[in-house]
């Protein structure tokens, strides 16, 4: 399909999609077969943003070459010039070579780095910070009039940072005038340079007192790209983060991601916009939640960042609420050493069934950080990475719970008392008892050599409550399907349920901890009665494709499986690679304090899952 041709979904038969990640470029071929649309082949290559091949399209072409080699279908021209599409396009649906369409997502370009500013640290600065964090930024500094620093210190700090975007808040609408303007003056005094491009004007999003928007513009407009949006704190007791978050996303796409080397050339190869990886991923999560009428948490753990997506029903109006957060420095390669720093060495070490010195652990993970495309070759190395993964997932989910607080497009209300004390954070929408499905994605989860270990990682990191189904994105395909669905939603849906999601099984877990050995619950399934006691972890065989109704009876009146304390529930349990997992280890999950006991417990859990170590 030529670049300028209009796209008729019915005429599509072979589509190649890539995701240019920060570490690896993944190419997938989708084909229309006799049984409908399927994902057929996959190729990958390191993303090439590093000299001497600092051009994202080189990595993409390497991935296409592998796809061509594995599929046997000629998709690349013998000689493609520097410019123009490298693809062979099919002239008719009978052609055995060529493709009809190429689409792509991209997350190359590194993280988003921001400075936020607000009048009062516990009020507008906090709101601005929430908006920036929610949009996936690393907040390099949060400036406020009451931050205890002298003016020259603030100026000096901002000047030395090279943020991608500044978010300026301050004052409710019709409220304080001088403080937001003073902050604008501080930014002007500091005059920071953007991280990319010497001719680029650093964007400053103004989300403060709307009545002085024009005056803030007068101060900043000459040197910055001034982007006014609705106030993040229009009233003292009301927070409205969505407009600022949207502006951040928009600016991120145009000011950060598009600076990845070769990105402009890649744009020329596809007739539709290259979508940011998380946007495409999120679109698939939202679609699946709607189609299946379920509540979902999905995670994409990458090399640099971990994205968490959720769809939960609003407790107020029952509408689905989609939320996404990005934990910008929690990842499995570039940021792997930062997971160790944020979680703490002991937190990572607790998941290891073997001894490893602190130095050895630090050095191994830093070697992964500087050689991000390498993969574990030994079991111990794999288990260490999976231990780090558990902590990255756990921390990113905590971040998500803290920020997934509002209705999309609606405004988050807090009481005045909460606004003053800041003691009551807005209530998280994440209701673990109501959660139906957890989807894991990203290399460490999708490519785990044994899929049971993926179930084990998700179980430890998310500590599900009640009855929760676990699945994994088979080969990190959700972004590809998200972007495909923009053109051919039916094809994307077919592939999503046929080839993308792999069921890992279902977890049943009570929400409390009792005395060791105490009876927790009984699961009645297929005429069998499965008893779970405190401290036990059980994995009951339940193969992929098996779906049953199970009755789950709490054996302690304090246990709430989602229907109220002590109430029996009937729920669908779905089989999978791991099976039916009964987790009686307690909530919150606490590992034995004694080192030998802890290692023995972790080892026994691996054995229960049937994972050889």
């Amino acid at each position, binding site marked *: 399909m030529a670049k300028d041709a209009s796209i008729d979904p019915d005429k599509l038969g072979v589509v190649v999609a890539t995701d240019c990640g920060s570490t690896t470029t993944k190419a997938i071929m989708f084909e229309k077969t006799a049984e409908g649309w399927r994902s057929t082949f996959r190729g990958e290559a390191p993303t090439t943003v*590093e000299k001497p091949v600092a051009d994202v399209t080189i990595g993409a072409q390497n991935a296409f070459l592998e796809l061509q080699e594995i599929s046997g279908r000629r998709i690349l021209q013998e000689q493609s010039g520097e410019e123009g599409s490298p693809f062979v396009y099919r002239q008719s649906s009978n052609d055995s070579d060529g493709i009809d369409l190429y689409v792509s997502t991209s997350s190359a370009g590194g993280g988003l780095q921001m400075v936020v500013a607000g009048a009062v640290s516990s009020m507008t600065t906090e709101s601005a910070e929430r908006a920036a964090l929610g949009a996936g930024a690393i907040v390099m500094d949060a400036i406020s009039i009451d931050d205890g620093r002298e003016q020259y210190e603030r100026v000096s700090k901002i000047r030395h940072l090279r943020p991608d975007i500044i978010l300026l808040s301050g004052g409710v609408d019709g409220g304080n005038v001088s403080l937001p303007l003073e902050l604008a003056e501080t930014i002007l005094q500091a005059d920071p340079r953007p991280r990319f491009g010497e001719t680029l004007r650093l964007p400053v999003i103004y989300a403060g007192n709307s009545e002085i928007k024009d005056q803030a513009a007068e101060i900043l407009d000459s040197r910055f790209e001034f982007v006014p949006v609705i106030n993040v704190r229009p009233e003292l007791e009301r927070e409205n983060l969505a407009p600022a978050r949207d502006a951040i996303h928009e600016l991120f796409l145009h000011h950060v991601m598009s600076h990845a080397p070769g990105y402009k050339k890649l744009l020329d190869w596809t007739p539709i916009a290259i979508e940011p990886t998380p946007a495409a991923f999120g679109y698939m999560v939202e679609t699946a939640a709607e189609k299946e009428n379920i509540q979902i948490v999905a995670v994409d753990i990458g090399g640099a960042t971990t994205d968490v997506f959720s769809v939960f029903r609003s407790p107020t109006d029952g509408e689905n609420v989609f939320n996404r957060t990005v934990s910008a*420095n929690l990842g499995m390669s570039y940021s792997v050493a930062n997971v160790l720093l944020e979680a703490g060495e002991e937190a990572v070490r607790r998941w290891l069934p073997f001894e490893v010195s602190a130095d050895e652990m630090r050095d191994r993970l830093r070697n992964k950080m500087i050689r991000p495309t390498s993969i574990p070759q030994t079991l111990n190395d794999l288990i260490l990475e999976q231990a780090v993964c558990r902590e990255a997932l756990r921390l990113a989910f905590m971040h998500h719970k803290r920020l997934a607080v509002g209705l999309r497009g609606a405004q988050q209300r807090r009481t005045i008392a909460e606004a003053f004390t800041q003691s009551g954070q807005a209530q998280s929408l994440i209701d673990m008892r109501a959660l139906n499905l957890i989807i894991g994605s990203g290399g460490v989860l999708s490519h785990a050599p044994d899929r049971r270990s993926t179930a084990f990682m998700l179980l430890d990191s998310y500590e599900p409550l009640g009855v929760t189904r676990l699945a994994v994105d088979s080969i990190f395909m959700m972004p590809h399907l998200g972007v495909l669905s923009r053109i051919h939603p039916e094809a994307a849906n077919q592939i999503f349920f046929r080839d993308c999601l792999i069921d890992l099984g279902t977890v049943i877990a009570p929400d409390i901890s009792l005395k060791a050995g105490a009876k927790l619950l009984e699961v009645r399934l297929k005429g069998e009665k499965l008893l779970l006691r405190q401290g036990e972890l059980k994995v009951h065989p339940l193969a992929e494709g098996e779906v049953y109704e199970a009755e789950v009876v709490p054996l302690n009146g304090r246990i709430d499986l989602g229907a109220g304390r002590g109430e029996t529930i009937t729920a669908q349990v779905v089989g999978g690679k791991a099976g039916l997992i009964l987790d009686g280890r307690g909530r919150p999950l606490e590992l034995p304090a004694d080192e030998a006991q802890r290692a023995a417990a972790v080892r026994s859990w691996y054995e229960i899952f049937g994972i050889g170590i």
Partner: protein
Amino acid sequence: MARAYTPGLEVKARTTVQRRRELPLPGKSLVGLGDLVQASTPVLSAELPGDLDIIRVAERLGFEPADVIDGMRVQVGEQISSGQLLCELKTFFGLFTSSLEAPRGGVVEFFTEANAHLGIRQPSTPLEIDAYISGKIVEVEEGKSVLIETSASLIQGIFGVGGERLGIVQCMDVERDHIVTSADIARAQSHADLSKAVLIGGSRFEYDALMAAAEAGASAVVTGSVDAGTLRSFVGHDIGVSITGDEDVPLTLIITEGFGKLPIAARIDELSKDLQGRSASVNGATQVRAGAMRPEIIVPNEEGAQQAKSDKPAGLEPGARIRVIRVPYFGKLGTVAELPTAPEAIDTGAKVRVLRVTLDDGQTATVPRANVELIQE
């Protein structure tokens, strides 16, 4: 991943090196096409905007902001001098006059009526950017950047901290697997002046050795590895994300092999001996993410520039020299013996594309292709 290997770090006795020097904001070029420059030669300059003085006019005069607007005597864009009248207010039917004068000269950048704050921009300060490497100017983007080319020896490290430094190559007279101590620095200092030295050698430097080298005035240390504890002590904090170069450290530290205790590569050790006493340009900045950069030691050749060679790396093929970058063969060098097409199972249970390598110690090993890097020689 057919091409799933890390592009090799370059260690070349002679290659053509180009480095672009760019201004952070528009300015002017100080050199022309074809000029020969030294590393310390200024090649670009710009005027950095001066500081912004903010005069709180209403507050200074003791009036409400709205009351001073009519009394303002300067306008946005106006060049003013020190002592110039900024605002004059007459009260009590003109009996009393309140006035405010400029404490320093500058250009009026803004006046905000809401709070009566006046911004005066100070004169700009000059910024000069040096060539960083000695060589020939081969491209000039007027007012923005210049490209300098030189024939040089190039050593790329895997990770570094600290920014650009200039110095003189000084080989540490130690075995490649030696852990350099402060006593080694003292010994080296007794033989040579370590001021501005770029010390190369050993498997790693102890923290005391790094500090002794800094004390002796060394510009940089290039060694095989560093352990996390020493790095934390040296930098003052843990490094969690591989973006470096701005650390406030007394010398630039570059490691060539990785974290732990790894001998500096033989070819780097040998090359550095050939470069003893030569001027080097060193940069520890590392960025593994997009827009990636690796730390580098550039030693321009004395006999002048050569024809540029292609920077395109050689492919992974039988006979290619590689280094394994992951346990259990981490750090070992070898020669590719075979590249099986079909994925094979490894110890973790994963099925991945592998290669067979004959390691330099005679062992034959199977390793994932993702776990090797080409040695660019």
